[in-house]
């Protein structure tokens, strides 16, 4: 090989080396214990399990913090019980001595834990619970998912100003804080911009009564239905809509499509045309982080959903805060960095956290062939 060829090969290799920006992090020997608390069994088990899968994926992809500390997950199952969740949280802090906790519990459970959280004074990242009072009620909680007020406001504007629909009803579950909070704030926002709500239908009706109520809405000429109900009742709603041959526009709250699938709605035809408010879209531009996660999921044959992605982003937020934390990194310092983090790169977008509340785009997705395609993105 001539000198000139050797030089070319050398330059080429140097360029290639330069392209590899992710230099490996050397382990420092220190361990950061992260408690993971959520429903792995019971009524909300599917949420907790999927969230755990997201966290495990994140830990596998990013096992070390920027400072080289190993992230150790200590997992507890609250069995979908708010009371149990409080006990386990206490145990994680006092017995396991965790440095922070990631909660994949629902809004009701988290609201029940507020007192314990405030008492233990340890940083908590809420992955899924979207009730607006969660971040305002505790100075130790940061959240990665959009909150109920944000999404119901966007839903109200979308229906009123974009779809130009005026006869709107709400379908909600009065027994859960999540659903009733969404219903209330939607009503407030919708009326604030001049809309008038036709009716509020609760999900605790019998199937016959629900059918009658929906038939009444159809007769009244209701054009859009805002749905904040998850689980079996949302499946019933779609089946009844089909049965009544009612072409009402349905706008669902976050996680609705995943919940429908989890509760046995396999028929893509029933969900075709649905609008859903979400933290993600299936067709959004993938970031480097999302590509890594998809590779991981493919390799490990894991099917991830919105809850998994939110849990994954909780881990990213934690890493971003740890990167800025001082060497000692006290609990208070970490908490401050979590609750007021300027910008970190999430799976789809740049995300920031201000006063514990996430600032992230809200996707208004359109469901087609069982997938969520971005219709609008609200910043």
């Amino acid at each position, binding site marked *: 090989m001539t000198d000139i060829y050797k030089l070319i090969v050398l330059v080429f290799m140097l360029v290639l080396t330069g392209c590899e920006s992710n230099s490996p992090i050397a382990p420092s020997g220190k361990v950061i214990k992260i408690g993971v608390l959520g429903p792995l069994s019971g009524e909300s088990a599917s949420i907790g399990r999927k969230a755990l899968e997201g966290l495990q994926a994140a830990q596998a992809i990013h096992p070390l913090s920027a400072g080289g500390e190993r992230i150790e997950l200590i997992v507890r199952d609250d069995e979908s019980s708010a009371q149990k969740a409080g006990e386990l949280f206490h145990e994680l802090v006092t017995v396991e001595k965790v440095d922070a906790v990631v909660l994949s519990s629902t809004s009701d459970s988290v609201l029940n834990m507020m007192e314990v959280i405030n008492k233990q004074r340890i940083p908590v990242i809420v992955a899924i619970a979207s009730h607006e009072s969660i971040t305002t009620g505790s100075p130790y909680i940061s959240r990665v998912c959009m909150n109920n007020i*944000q999404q119901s*406001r*966007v839903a109200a*504007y979308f229906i009123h*100003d*974009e779809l130009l629909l005026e006869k709107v009803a709400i379908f909600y579950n009065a027994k859960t804080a999540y659903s009733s909070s969404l219903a209330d704030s939607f009503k407030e926002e919708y009326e604030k*911009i001049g809309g008038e709500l036709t009716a509020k239908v609760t999900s605790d009706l019998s199937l016959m009564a629900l059918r009658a109520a929906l038939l009444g809405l159809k007769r009244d000429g209701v054009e859009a239905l805002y749905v904040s109900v998850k689980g079996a009742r949302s499946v019933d709603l779609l089946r009844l809509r089909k049965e009544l041959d009612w072409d009402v526009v349905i706008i669902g709250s976050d996680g609705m499509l995943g919940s429908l699938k989890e509760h046995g709605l396999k028929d893509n035809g029933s969900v075709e045309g649905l609008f859903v408010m979400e933290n993600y879209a299936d067709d959004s531009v993938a970031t480097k982080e999302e590509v890594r996660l998809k590779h991981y999921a493919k390799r490990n044959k894991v099917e991830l959903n919105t809850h998994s992605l939110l849990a994954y982003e909780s881990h990213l937020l934690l890493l971003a805060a740890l990167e800025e934390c001082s060497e000692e990194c006290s609990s208070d310092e970490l908490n401050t960095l979590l609750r007021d983090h300027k910008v970190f790169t999430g799976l789809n977008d*740049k995300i920031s956290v201000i006063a514990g509340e996430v600032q992230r785009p809200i996707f208004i997705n359109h469901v087609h062939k069982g997938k969520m395609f*971005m*219709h*609008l*993105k*609200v*910043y």
Partner: protein
Amino acid sequence: MEYKKRVICVWDDNGRQYLEKLKANAFDTEIVDCEASLFLNHPEKFLPDIEHIIAAVGRDLILQLVRLRDHWDFTLAFLPNSSQRTLIKMMDLSTDLDHNIDIALRDDAKAIDLISCNGALVELKATIGTIPLIGLSGHAHTPWEFLKDIRLGLAQFFKMHLQQFEIETANGKKIKTAASGVFVFEHGRQSTLSRMMQYDHSRRDNQVMLIIVSPFSVVEYMRFLFAVIISPGKGEKIPDAIGVIKSREITVRASSSKEVVLDERSSVGLPVTFKIMDQKLKVNAGPKFWEENSKQSSDKETIKIDNLPDEKEMKRYLHSHIPFFSYASEDRFKELFLSLRKDAETNMHYIVLMLLSTLLATIGLFSNSSAVVIGAMLLAPLMAPIVSFAMGMLRADERMIEYSLMKITVGIGLALLASAGVALLLPELALTDEMRARINPNLLDMGIAVFSGMAAAYSKSFKEIAQSLAGVAIAVALVPPLSVAGIGLGQGNMDVFYGAFLLFFTNLVGISLAATLTFQILGFSSVVKSRKSMLIVSALLIATVFPLYFSYRKIIESYHLEKFIQQSRFLVNDKYVIIKEVSVVDRDDVTLLDLTLSVREALDRHDLEMLKQRLQEQVEEKLFIRAEVEYIL
């Protein structure tokens, strides 16, 4: 119908099975049978007592039986097995044994011609030289064999070359020409050969038919094959690449081939004489065979060689290999070349039309009138010299290149001067949308130019579609970009000049290259290779494509940005902002966004700053934003 009283059936292992049914025939014909080798060793035991032979044997044994005609007088019929498809097709038989027995026992045998090649019998085909893919169906018995034949045939495409052939007929007519190959064939129903040779051919006309294949290019040969496959039929015009000679006797000499291949089996050294054998063979065949071979003996020779290169032209065509594209002599397309030469010359009409069309275009551009601009496009005479330039490049015709380039340059100069003059006279007039549309060329414009160039060359090549040139002129629009460039010069706006002139240059290069290529495909290239010209055009093309590519990328990026913004909404201080319309304009290193926003509540400066910040966070380019706000009531 009369039937034979007594016949002999000569059989081999495959044909033995037919004996039982043959002997039980319904025509009271007595059947004597004999195994083929026994019969061939001692024909005298049966001939001449029995006059009719039924051959239930394979191809080789049939040929041996035919050769017995030299010594014995008999008629011949066939009982083919189902694998003898060529024989079945050739003699209009079938796979139905009863049908074949009926034909074989009839007493109506008629004489057919037999052709010899230096004394050897031509069974189906005799070939000299290279003639790819012709006569495939006669040999392949399985799809695999057929595919193999095709593969070998395709490989021959690129080995084809023209060689000199000297052909002499029975009447002493001597023909010298260049061809890739010649062949003689016996009539084979439904084969590629027979489709091609429906030109008044019969196996009973006492004539040898010699086909001369002389394509000027691989493309022409493919066109010939295509024509043979899709439009066979009697009385069709003989394809360009083909010559036909019919005579009782034809002698062939070739400059490079050493032998004639008989039926892909044996060969005979050149020179060879094909002639009709004196001994006729009388055969039984199906009715269609006699319909197709009804013509009686004729001594009149036929010589159709108008499409072949004559002795004078021949030397130019004797290349090592036939080129992929055709080449043409000036004589063959005299009218076209004369017209193109005339188009390349600058004259007063051109100057006047160029000035008028430029002035019209410039005024149309200033008044933002599409109709006037289109009128100017139609009036503009620039397309003609560009097409001439393309032909000049292809044929390395320096005079045509020089003249057409001069004419184009004069046209460009006049257009720039005229439009710059108008712009100087009207300095207060601003750029219009018609002008803006011509200052951001991209690869799509190159696409338009390429297809227009092809259409222009194609229209020019055929008189009957010359009227299409008007459409081409509108599609590619040469003068308006020049006018915009001139306006840019007149107004001292070099961005406008550069953008519009790049569009014109794109059209010029695109049309030239595409027209050159089209002329080449249509077979107008010169025997003299014009690589240098092609290199010049290619270099021009590359020089144009780069700026266009970047421009195209910018358009794609702008499109994505527009799409992204159109799908975006903003909650700015709890105010919902709808992006109703968006337009992205790239200017130097900044991106200008023209937005139309829909809101319910008034946006103050603070809200607008936040909106801008949110938008800027999503894109890398520095944004300048202009917004119109409309209210939702």
